[in-house]
């Protein structure tokens, strides 16, 4: 586990340090979408909620919505930003 953490930290640092500042906003937005992986935790909470545990069901449902917002919104916004970079490159 620790092994994975250190490797991921290293990867994150390596990948980021070569980014031109012009791409910082899309990059931040892209990274923002990626940490939407919390949605998997939300799915696990929701998926394992017992039928009579209403608090877990409501909160789980809520967190699935929040997580999806993060993922979908994040990727769509990033795509919109990058679309513009593309268009005027021709």
């Amino acid at each position, binding site marked *: 586990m620790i092994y994975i953490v250190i490797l991921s930290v290293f990867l994150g640092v390596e990948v980021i340090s070569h980014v031109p500042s012009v791409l910082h906003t899309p*990059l931040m937005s892209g990274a923002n979408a990626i940490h939407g992986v919390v949605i998997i935790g939300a799915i696990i909470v929701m998926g394992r909620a017992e039928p009579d545990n209403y608090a877990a069901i409501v909160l789980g449902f809520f967190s699935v919505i929040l997580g999806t917002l993060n993922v979908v919104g994040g990727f769509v916004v990033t795509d919109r930003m990058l679309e513009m970079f593309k268009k005027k490159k021709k």
Partner: protein
Amino acid sequence: MINFYVLALIYLIGSITFVLGLKMLSHPESARKGNLIAAGGMTIAIFGTIFLDKSIGNYLWIFGGIVIGSIIGTFAAKKVKMTAMPQMVSMFNGMGGACAAVISIVEYSKHDFSHGGPWAVATIMAGMLIGSVSFAGSMIAFGKLNGNIGDKVFPGQKFINLVILLTGLGIGVYLALQNFGNNTLLLIATAVALFYGVMFVMPIGGADMPVVISLLNSFTGVAAAFGGFMYNNQVMLTGGILVGSAGTILTILMCKAMNRSLFNVIAGAFGTAGGASAGAASDKGTVKEISVSDAAVLLAYSKKVFIVPGYGLAVAQAQHTCHELEKLLEEKGVEVKYAIHPVAGRMPGHMNVLLAEADVPYDKLLEMEDANGEMPNTDVSVIIGANDVVNPAARSDKSSPIYGMPIIDVDKSQNVIVMKRSMASGYAGIDNELFYYPNNRMLFGDAKASLQKLVAEVKAL
């Protein structure tokens, strides 16, 4: 059993797409594809979890949530104006933080305290605390960027913030050591963390907003990673840590660009020092104004012009008019380029996104170092709605709060035209001695109105 291996493989693929996606996002040509690849990885990880993890039920609820979230998310992301992009990123970031906090709270309430010991509880606590701070902070950042919330500064704020932070951490540590379910105390800790998020972002001024959003972004990443620990889920762990470390590096790079330590930003001190040197630049000389027609002549007969955009350009929505002026001048044989300061606007790259929306070619945008190299043989620099990023005090005045921050050396070009609404100081709250320089002239008025007049004048020449 086969499901288990397939899911592990899917998570591995998901993690790889995140790394690849981030990597590709760092090059303009591959950026869009990178984003799509990461999105694809995310999609298979989500559906893999739903269908391959046997402990998952409640499909109706899960899909209901995903559908609702997707509709709102897509709608919000498509509708938002380009200038409001930073707020939107902040908002989505907050959603992720809230999600991490909520799952931690549910897991705590269901936690089996006879297994795992204090570390398992500490993991849950960390996810809850960091997620809550990230959520509350992002909401305040959203409100600030949207103009709904102003900066709030009061004496002793640093100290009080520290106390709140320690209180939150203290309860977290206590609950972990106690290793016994205490939902009331958990909710109190959540409330303290939310309150800290509010207090943390409240005093921070606009100049620091990019740093704060980037920092909160990495916070959410770390919160997600703790979720990964909690469920022993590799894709959450790698994705979260990746964003956490990448976000931290990005934050540090931004701090460096402004010559501020991360500690000062976290302690929430910016803006408080502003008043000290505000009087320093008085009686420096006279401020000269320039008329629109004079400015038009000056620009049209120059060889090389640099445009330095700032937040004012975004507020006035003047990027299209700006591009129009640039095209007109190019037709007249003037070389026009843009000099982009790393922290111009409210987010790093804010100006690039804004100008890209107006179809300004990518190769016309120069980064600060490159632009500064060309300044001495530039005839005119036009500063549109920027202030602190061109303040020479950052080079010379040691008492200035922005001393040491790299700036765009517009004062080294032959002429400077500053388009501004008034003599008011910029976001850092300090006077700009550039306005008193002999080669500087002011063109007062709303950036868009001034640019439109300029365009008309240049056309008429």
